[in-house]
């Protein structure tokens, strides 16, 4: 049980896909103008990573290593199309908001990376948990970015007014330049945080 928790939790902070591995940045900037969009994108990606890890892990002994990448890509594309059709049917407004970035989930480096690094070497259940952890880490990062941008740029959170009434929204946070600058500072923040964690561990004499 502890092993499974370890597999799940490493995606949250220490190997966070966006802040630490710096993979799949396009969606992190493009669809985080509001918390709802960020959450929808995060959940979609979590769904795709964990399902794809499951599929890749089930077929891992049948696939010839030479053709593995095209097979992974086909599997990812199929699952993304499935997610796209589901969203189009049940949440057409979100589908419209996410727009082209939804189709682009196919080429997110993090999904292919997890298939290659983890799912192709581990049994199905473990791979599924790994995908879930990475997906949650991704969603968490998206939520942080989305919340900061929505509060500062629009004065609202999940559509409700949270800032005082005379608050002048900093429009730049919703626009492209603000997104870049915010991520820059968040990356620096995560760097300081993980350095502190490692320093504390070293002082206690633990090895990672």
């Amino acid at each position, binding site marked *: 049980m502890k092993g499974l928790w370890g597999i799940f939790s490493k995606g949250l902070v220490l190997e966070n896909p966006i802040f630490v591995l710096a993979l799949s940045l396009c969606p992190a900037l493009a669809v985080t103008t509001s918390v709802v969009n960020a959450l929808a994108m995060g959940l979609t990606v979590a769904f795709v990573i964990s399902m794809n890890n499951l599929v890749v892990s089930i077929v891992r002994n049948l696939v010839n290593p030479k053709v593995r990448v095209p097979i992974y*890509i086909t599997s990812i*594309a199929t699952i993304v*199309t499935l997610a796209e059709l589901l969203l189009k049917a049940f949440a057409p407004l979100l589908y419209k908001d996410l727009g082209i970035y939804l*189709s*682009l989930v196919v080429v997110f480096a993090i999904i292919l990376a997890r298939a290659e690094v983890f799912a192709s070497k581990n049994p199905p259940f473990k791979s599924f948990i790994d995908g879930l952890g990475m997906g949650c880490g991704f969603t968490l990062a998206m939520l942080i970015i989305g919340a900061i941008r929505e509060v500062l740029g629009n004065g609202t959170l999940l559509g409700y007014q949270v800032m005082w009434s005379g608050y002048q929204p900093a429009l730049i946070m919703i626009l492209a330049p603000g997104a*870049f600058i915010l991520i*820059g500072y968040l990356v620096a923040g995560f760097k300081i945080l993980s350095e502190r964690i490692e320093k504390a561990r070293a002082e206690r004499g633990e090895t990672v």
Partner: protein
Amino acid sequence: MMDYFLLFMGAVVVNNFVLTRFLGLCIFFGVSKNLSASGGMGMAVTAVITLSSMFAWLVYNYILLPLNLTFLTTIVFVLLIASFVQLLEMIVKKYTPNLHKMWGIYLLLIATNCVVLGVPLINVESHFSFGKSLVNAVGSGVGFAMAIVLMASCREKLRLADVPKSLDGLGIAFIVAGCLALAFFGFSGMITM
């Protein structure tokens, strides 16, 4: 004619793919550490976007649309582009080994990239004609090349600067990109489509 010119300028500066639509960021931050590599990358991306947009347009309008298979667009485009890039790499390797030495590694990096997949998807979603798709693709490629070269020039200068330790590397690169995006914002509204 004016139409095409506006579309081209729009794709290069107003709707610059990297700085306003956030596509191709992995390459943009990964390869912009030195100027000559980023120039090569910019050219390779332009070539691949242009050629794959052409193929994708033909496949979409002559195969997927008549057969009512448009829900397969994403899968078909991904496989089409990935196999096309592989083919291109083999051809370049066989006939122009020098070019291959310069571009080879970039070509494989481009194979599954969001800007290369994004442009053909935007083309078919906006129902562009063949000529317009081509112009949009070339414009997007040139815009990408321009952004990555600008970024690389800034980062080369930054190497001599005294950056706070925690911001060093990726952090400061993002902030520089933010400033570039701010500069490109000056173009917005110049061309309304």
